[in-house]
């Protein structure tokens, strides 16, 4: 009897998957691999974004303090109070303005700003990648 049923089941035709199924599986695993990497990157960039955001705030405060201490604001206000003198001696005025500019603090804050923007872009890209894959998974019933 056992042999009969085995023979019977062997007569059943196998369901045929699409020709691309094997490739689809490999691609899907590749995508999941990238998802795993993206998740790790999200954690990494989130940490960097938080650190650089704090850095940006502190560098802005430092720039503001340096501008006050160097007298930059006072020189700059001459444009509004004594424009005719500034226009006459504009070359000297420009030089004085540049000399009073806290270059290092400004450069540091600009670097911080570009880091915050850069990390935000990377973070958004990874979040979008994961979201789009999650939508695909949901649409397929998983």
């Amino acid at each position: 009897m056992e042999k009969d049923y085995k023979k019977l089941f062997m007569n059943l035709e196998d369901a045929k998957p699409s020709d691309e199924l094997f490739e689809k599986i490999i691609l899907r695993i590749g995508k999941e691999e990238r998802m795993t990497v993206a998740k790790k990157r999200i954690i990494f960039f989130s940490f960097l974004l938080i650190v650089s955001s704090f850095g940006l705030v502190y560098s802005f405060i430092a720039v503001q303090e340096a501008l006050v201490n160097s007298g930059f604001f006072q020189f700059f206000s001459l444009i509004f109070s004594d424009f005719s003198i500034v226009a006459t001696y504009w070359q000297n005025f420009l030089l004085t303005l540049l000399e009073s500019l806290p270059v290092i603090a400004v450069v540091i804050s600009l670097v911080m700003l570009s880091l915050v923007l850069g990390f935000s872009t990377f973070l958004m890209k990874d979040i979008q990648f994961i979201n789009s894959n999650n939508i695909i998974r949901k649409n397929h019933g998983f």
Partner: protein
Amino acid sequence: MDNDSDEKLVEYFLDGEKRALEILIFRYFKIIYNFCYRYVGDANAAEDITQETFVKTWKNLKKFDKNKKFKTWLFQIAKNSCIDYLRKKKTIPFSRFENEDGDNIFVDNFVDSSPLPDELFKRKDLSSFLEGAINKLPVNHKMVMFLYYKNEFNFREIAEILNEPIDTIKSRYRRGLISLRKEIGDYEY
């Protein structure tokens, strides 16, 4: 590497050999697809579940117990993926997976052991006829019979795959045989 055992290929993969996983997938994707197709009865869904099965397999390969058979473990993942899919689609009530084995001593112990009629095997449309008869069986009975006859698992392995006691599996097998016999017997050759 192509002729290595499944368990050896898992080891190779864990050692960093990516091709080992590809060989494993190639070895089983059609079998798993067939299993999923029988379980959910939908070709497109079966493809999605097959993909999901292998993704889960890849994700959990590190947790694979090397003392177990890879094939049994893979079928376990496929079965769980099928159930997840059906639950989310809500196409079948959850109760269909449980509590369907009532204690009917007569049914559990009576199986017609007479050989199947020769006319049956002479039928030109045997495959489609059989397909129709098998599809009338409850899904749990059908899956036990498929795993036993088509995928050549023993009752212990089937119990492991379906996460059920071995007695339940044997009971389902017997009930499946009775139902199939009835379906085949009802037909006039």
